[in-house]
């Protein structure tokens, strides 16, 4: 399990990283925390000719809490994102999702951006990004562009990122509704394993407990993490009674196209999708002070 030979560049700025990517083209890979990349390189499943190390670029490590959004630098360690209280009060779903990402040890090294560009369809951070409609800022030598999550995730381990681009930062929208709650859950064989199915939800309620804003999604049951804006809209104006939640969750499950593997058949995944969708909606409602 030694990786195939590669060149290594420690970039000292975003510009130098982008320049290296432009020069090298398709066969270059950015390395940040390396929690996914290093194992697949060791198994020689990927063989980059050049590794561009962005760990020393300070400009990629920050958490900036702003009025409508929180901006997080791509190379910010997951552990720092998880522990940031100001962030947790604005985008609470991130802390919830991160509790399921690997283990404490891997989160100390793994980065927010690394997980998002890796784009594993069952990974937690891509699902959170999809559900909340996060925006990805992509930088290249010729400038920057911003893509919404729904445009960004295009397939399993595939994103709309061009080979010359580096993910620079991720913008997470802040919900201003006072009664907002969110929840994240998943089923994996062991804690920290790739989820068979994951589910995330964020809701806002009015004073009477009526749902005024809703977003939810499912991971591990499609080519990308899935958000269900149309189904979420069916929750609006309701008090999230049993029948509504169940029907929305079942419809979401029915829209999934899961695959089968050693640990879960498509049927099992689809079943879990319905169960977990209902659970996260209910849990988010409770977090928002509703229900009961």
């Amino acid at each position, binding site marked *: *399990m030694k990786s195939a030979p590669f060149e290594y560049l420690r970039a000292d700025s975003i510009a130098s990283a982008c320049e290296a990517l432009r020069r090298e083209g398709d066969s270059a890979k950015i390395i940040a925390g390396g929690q996914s990349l290093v194992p697949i390189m060791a198994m020689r499943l990927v063989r980059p000719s050049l590794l561009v190390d962005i760990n020393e670029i300070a400009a990629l490590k920050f958490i900036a809490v702003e009025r409508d959004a929180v901006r997080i630098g791509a190379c910010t360690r997951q552990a720092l994102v998880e522990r940031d209280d100001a962030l947790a009060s604005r985008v609470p779903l991130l802390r919830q999702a991160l509790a399921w990402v690997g283990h404490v040890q891997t989160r100390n090294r793994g980065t927010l951006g690394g997980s998002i560009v890796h784009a594993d369809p069952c990974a937690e951070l891509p699902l959170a990004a999809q559900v909340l409609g996060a925006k990805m800022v992509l930088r290249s030598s010729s400038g920057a562009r911003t893509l919404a999550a729904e445009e960004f995730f295009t397939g399993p381990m595939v994103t709309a990122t061009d080979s010359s681009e580096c993910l620079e930062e991720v913008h997470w929208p802040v919900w201003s509704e006072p009664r907002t709650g969110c929840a994240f859950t998943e089923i994996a*064989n062991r804690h920290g394993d790739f989820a068979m199915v994951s589910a995330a939800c964020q809701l806002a309620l009015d004073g009477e407990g009526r749902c005024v804003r809703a977003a939810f999604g499912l991971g591990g049951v499609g080519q990308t993490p899935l958000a269900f804006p149309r189904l979420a809209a069916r929750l609006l104006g309701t008090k999230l009674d049993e029948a509504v939640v169940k029907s929305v969750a079942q419809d979401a499950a029915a829209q999934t196209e899961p695959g089968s593997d050693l*640990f879960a058949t498509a049927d099992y995944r689809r079943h879990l999708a319905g169960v977990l969708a209902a659970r996260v909606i209910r849990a988010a409602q409770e977090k928002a002070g509703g229900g009961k």
Partner: protein
Amino acid sequence: MAEEKSPSGFRYIGTKRRTKEDPRFVTGRGHYAADIALPGMKHIALVASPHPSARIVSINTKPALAVPGVLYVLTGEEFQGGTDALYVGVDAPKVTRYALARGIVRYAGEWVAAVVADTRAIAEDAAELVEVEYESLPYVIDPEAALAPDAHLVHKAHGSNVLYHRKFVWGPVEEAFAKADHKLAFRATWGRSSTVPIETFGVAAQWDAGTGLLDIWASIQMPKFPDQAARALKLPGNAVRVHFDVDVGGSYGLKRGIKHTVLVGFLAKRLGVPVRLIEDRLENMRGGDMHGPDRFFDMQVAFDRDGTIRALKIRAVDDVGAYAGRSPLQLGKPVGAICGPYQIRAIEYEPTSVMTNKTPQEAVRGFGQAPTNFALERAMDRVARYLKMDRIELRRKNLIRKDQFPYLIPSGTSYDSGDYHAVLDKALAAIDYPALERERDEARKAGRLAGIGISTCLEPSGGNTSFEILFNPKNETTTWMDSCLVRVDLSGSITGLMNTSSSGQGHETLVSTVIGEVLERDPAAIRVIHADSLSALPSNSPVGSRMAIMLGGAAAGAARKIKDTLVAIAAHNFECSPQDLEYRDGNVNVKGVPSKVLTWDQLVEIAHRKYHQMPPGIEPGLQAKFVWEVPTGPTVPTPDGRVQMYPCYSFETHIVYVEIDPDTGKPSLKRYVCGHDCGVMINPDIVHGMTYGGIAHGIGASLYEKFAYTEDGQLASGTFMDYLIPSAMEVPDIHIVDHCTPSPLTTFGQKGSGEAGYLGAPAAIANAVNDALDPLGVSIDTLPMSHLALWERISSAAKKSA
């Protein structure tokens, strides 16, 4: 750490004392195979077959040899020409096995060529360039298919896929089945799992042409390893020196890299440079030949309405993979505990060892006993359920009583001692069983699936060769000794020499504690070292939960000789009889006259430097060796296959509470108590650590771990992403309750505990899961009980009721 006085009157044995070896491990000062760095050492990477069964048409090594830094590429053609085939545990001489295949590959992952290079990375680069042309052949993956008359033969020359088959009948089985009130039958399936130590197998070798000596450093736990390595390398035994002072990073039975070692030894000699192979995880899991039992049991039970179990019929089919080694013998050891801790007077046992095109099997913790215990305990619960009888009552009724020991079981083995009812009662009290039942019932009322599982199981310990001669009468062997040498140097300090390597069992603590106990000297000041194979006394390595018994007994025997020598020296100098003396803390004084004393230092000085004060007939210097045979000795089997298997029998009972999420199938272990009796514990921390680890291992085997194969013969779980070892998140708090029934056969009353926990955990967890599923009217008897498998059972019940 405060030292507690042992409750049993020993000075050091059984007290809570710091272990001797752990400080160096936890401070990163262990010395493992991967720490061996020899000047000019080269590294090996392997080329593995992608096919489960194929003919090797050609191998082109030229592109690999052209890579800068590559020294050599070895193929099976040259290797098999220069070495002998590895040892086969049963009478199957045509099932030849070498580290590198020649002509035919028999499983996906089998090694075809070895690349030797300056670094492991270069070796891997070059291994990719070795061009092997294959012509794929039929293959067989399912063990039942492999038994079919027209099955593809894994080894054509052997003429069958069956390595071993026999039907043993011990006692009036048919009569019992005819007379019993009830009978039931079911199949229990133990999945292909193993132990997967963090350290893969590693070995380094160096050939000295000047002395004609091959030095080997390996992460080894294997009986007869130096002999087998020398034989396969066609070298005299005294031309191979295995260094046993290499720390082994976990083994649990399977660090038996004999094929790796022969390969590395051959290359070191052939190339004249030191060579090292450290398996990577992919090589280890596909081609390291370290999978465990893969076994199903067709169980039949004859029993009466009062719960008396009259007889068992057990058909066990074990899929050992593509080659034999010792793996068929894993069906043999359970003969010695084939009725578990129960009074069952008639047993039919029909073991079948079958080959398939899968990775070969190696010895795993318990050597086949854990699967057998699982099948037995599922049978007990099924009987209880059938009779609507309480599972604990059923067990109490059938458990051997403490006044029945020594107890002869139908297969010819005598159990030494035990108090199974007391251990069970202690465990039930520790978990507050009535409260646990209430907890389960309340959970059920709240709509959850909740179950309690119980197992009562044996751990045979002490080891011997009985299954070897039982399964292969041509292999007439009955000796299974271990040894220790104790030396007191001129400064008066004590050194114990053990004669095998350790893989985490704490032998240095064991030996120093025992020597300290006998000589009444502080174990903390006693050094324990590992011999090399040329300076070693005979040993059979730490297998079969034998070291507390055998190495402990040998260390005590050697220490007693030292003590006798010291007393003899004093008697000579005081001109009295040894009976007139007393030995205290290493000093010897005349009884009743404390002032008339020769101190430890004085006695040591006489032994080493004052020959004129030595009694006649006693060797100068102060050292003693003791070679000890297994206390019961192995016996030669009777014609109907009755034999004394291991000497000592530890007992464990597990009580586990599980809840299963009915909507997802996810199980969680909520409460866990293990009652354990391994006689006198030499070091309680070590026993508890082993038991704890064994339970974690059992959790893995029952819920998570499986070397799964695809229909096209590929290993589907060859990494830690898919071979799921339970982590700290999956292992609950475990409460271990001790009980002590000393063995009458051993030096201090100790029994073995190296396999503790693992032998009863899967059985209890399976019983708990089945108790949880019981209200749905479904059951599961196949391990591992994955989330998916549990959900499928639950949803099948839902469909049935709908």
